[in-house]
């Protein structure tokens, strides 16, 4: 019986809302946009952090990445016209780490050079040369598509071979099969022995560029060309000349990167300290390297994500509150407009409770309708953002529930006062009301 009564009350609510269609629609819009923005904001936030985490995950959670960084200019002797600055990671560093630290599972030094490559007389393509060793595949999620990766023999004999990734294959060879072809880099020919694909998820570019940990496909480079480290060492000068402000300066960097892999994620942090201690000694406290721990980044990202979601969610929640105030305003107007009806209903046997239920159900119909429309719109907007803005978005089930729950709560909270006002009007006064 209670159910049927509630059903009739809701029917009545819908009916009187239908009588004021424009008003009801406008009121609902407040909730629609509120709910919609909660969902959209959370979806965008979730998508961004998921992309960031994926990018970090690809760096490997058991990896420790040591990067060369240019040390800050300590000496202000601008009088020097020519000086060679020697900094960064060295082969000695790599050797020392391998020889003195027992828990290192794999250690992979890498030299990185941005250059151009050419195949026959086709236009040049900007590439990134990565001089490394065969074990590179153990620290990076790269998949062999065809041919083979670099081998120990390549390394020993400083062979002029290379492995290209799909970006380079597309850029240089178009539709030709790259395997067995020769590409020209800096006056030398290298035979392509393998094709790899760098596995990447929905990486959100720019999100992590500040920490320079992304290496694939950034900076307008078509892709990577992997060449044996020994070959690179003998063919490419470690000196790098730059001219700035009339001064010629030269830098000498042996290695850009050393990646250390340990057996389990628990060892990563202690390994960082050990490696840092060793390098600090070797570099005599010069700040020309940095150690990146992807696992730590991952944890940071999780923290950031939580804060991000809270901030976005609160901003959106504010718009819901504004929508709620709009509803309360309209319901107060409705109540005073319908004072006489309230008086009549009270005279005909309606209890205070009945009046509260009546007006509350109207508010609930409005907010729940707004909630449903908001959920629909809120699911469409992230899709549009992904399509046009090329940003990943993820709509989670709990964000829908949250948005719907909040809209229902807004309905109850902001509908309560007008309904209470209606119920507590004096029936005699109400009946006299014009």
């Amino acid at each position: 019986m209670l159910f049927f009564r509630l059903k009739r009350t809701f029917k009545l609510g819908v009916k009187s809302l239908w009588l004021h269609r424009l008003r009801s629609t406008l009121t609902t819009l407040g909730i629609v946009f509120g709910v919609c923005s909660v969902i959209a904001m959370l979806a965008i936030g979730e998508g961004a952090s998921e992309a960031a985490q994926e990018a970090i995950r690809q760096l490997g959670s058991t990896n420790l990445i040591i990067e060369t960084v240019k040390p800050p200019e300590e000496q202000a002797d601008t009088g020097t016209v020519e000086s060679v600055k020697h900094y960064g990671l060295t082969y000695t560093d790599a050797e020392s780490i391998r020889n003195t630290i027992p828990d290192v599972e794999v250690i992979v030094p890498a030299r990185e050079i941005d250059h151009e490559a050419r195949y026959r007389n086709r236009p040049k393509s900007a590439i990134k040369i990565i001089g490394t060793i065969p074990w590179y595949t153990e620290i990076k999620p790269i998949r062999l598509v065809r041919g083979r990766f670099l081998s120990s023999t390549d390394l020993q004999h400083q062979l002029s071979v290379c492995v290209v990734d799909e970006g380079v294959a597309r850029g240089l060879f178009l539709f030709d099969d790259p395997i067995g072809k020769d590409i020209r880099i800096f006056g030398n020919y290298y035979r392509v022995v393998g094709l790899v694909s760098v596995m990447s998820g929905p990486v959100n570019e720019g999100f992590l560029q500040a920490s320079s940990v992304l290496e694939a496909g950034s900076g307008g480079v078509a892709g990577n060309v992997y060449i044996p480290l020994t070959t690179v060492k003998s063919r490419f000068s470690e000196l790098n000349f730059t001219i700035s402000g009339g001064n010629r300066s030269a830098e000498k960097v042996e290695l850009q990167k050393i990646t250390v892999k340990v057996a389990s994620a628990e060892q990563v942090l202690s390994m960082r300290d050990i490696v840092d201690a060793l390098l600090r000694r070797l570099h005599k406290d010069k700040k020309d390297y940095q150690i990146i721990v992807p696992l730590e980044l991952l944890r940071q990202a999780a923290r950031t994500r939580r804060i991000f979601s809270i901030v976005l969610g609160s901003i959106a929640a504010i718009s819901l509150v504004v929508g709620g105030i709009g509803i309360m305003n309209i319901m107060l107007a409705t109540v005073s407009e319908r004072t006489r009806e309230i008086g009549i209903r009270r005279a005909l046997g309606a209890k205070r409770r009945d009046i509260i239920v009546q007006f509350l159900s109207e508010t609930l119909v409005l907010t729940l309708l707004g909630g449903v429309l908001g959920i629909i719109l809120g699911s469409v907007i992230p899709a549009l953002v992904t399509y046009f803005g090329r940003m990943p978005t993820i709509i989670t089930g709990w964000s829908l529930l949250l948005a719907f729950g909040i809209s229902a709560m807004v309905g109850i909270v902001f509908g309560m006062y007008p309904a209470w006002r209606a119920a507590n009007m004096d029936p005699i006064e109400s009946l006299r009301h014009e």
Partner: protein
Amino acid sequence: MVGVTSGMAIVATENLNKVYRVGGYELFALRDFNLHIDEGLYAAIMGPSGSGKSTLLNILGCLDRPSSGTYRLAGEDVSGLDDDLLSEVRGRRIGFIFQSYNLIAQLNVIENIEVPMFYQGLSEHKSAARAAELAGLVGLGDRLRHRPSELSGGQQQRVAIARALANDPAIILADEPTGNLDSASGAEILGILDDLREQGKTLIVVTHDAEIAARAQRVIHLLDGRIEKEVDVGA
């Protein structure tokens, strides 16, 4: 002093007082008011404005509570009931007919008649059937889906009467039921009230209209919150 028509007193007040405090003064709207109305009586209440008619009607209709004294409606003391219980008494025991009809504008004839039944928890099915029957009884069987704005004043008042009968109340309270009507429509309404008396309903009508007073079995004249005189017409 009271001519007993039949059976028990359906309305009985004892030393009823209603006091309003206005700027330190005590204003007695009703003073030691004793009224007994038996079941099936058609009573008219008359008196100049300010004599306490409205206050009496509000208290008899359980819309208001007396300051002191007791009011028994169909044997039940309702003077001390709380808001919820008073609402229930109104819904079950009392049928209201107002001067300005007081129909709900967005509801049609059937739905208006259904309102009191809804609050008594009657099923939609039953209440719709009963509402249609009552509408037929007051001669509106062909206008069930009309809105109040599509009806004449007389028709609206007939809907209101049908609504007052919905829960088969113990008493029907009418406040100037013909006050807003032309004489022809007014006569129709009075005809329906006569029919109700025939059926044994208890009617209490507040009016200035001598014609209503002429049809009532008892006329109660009020003055300054007291009964000035009661005249049994005896029909």
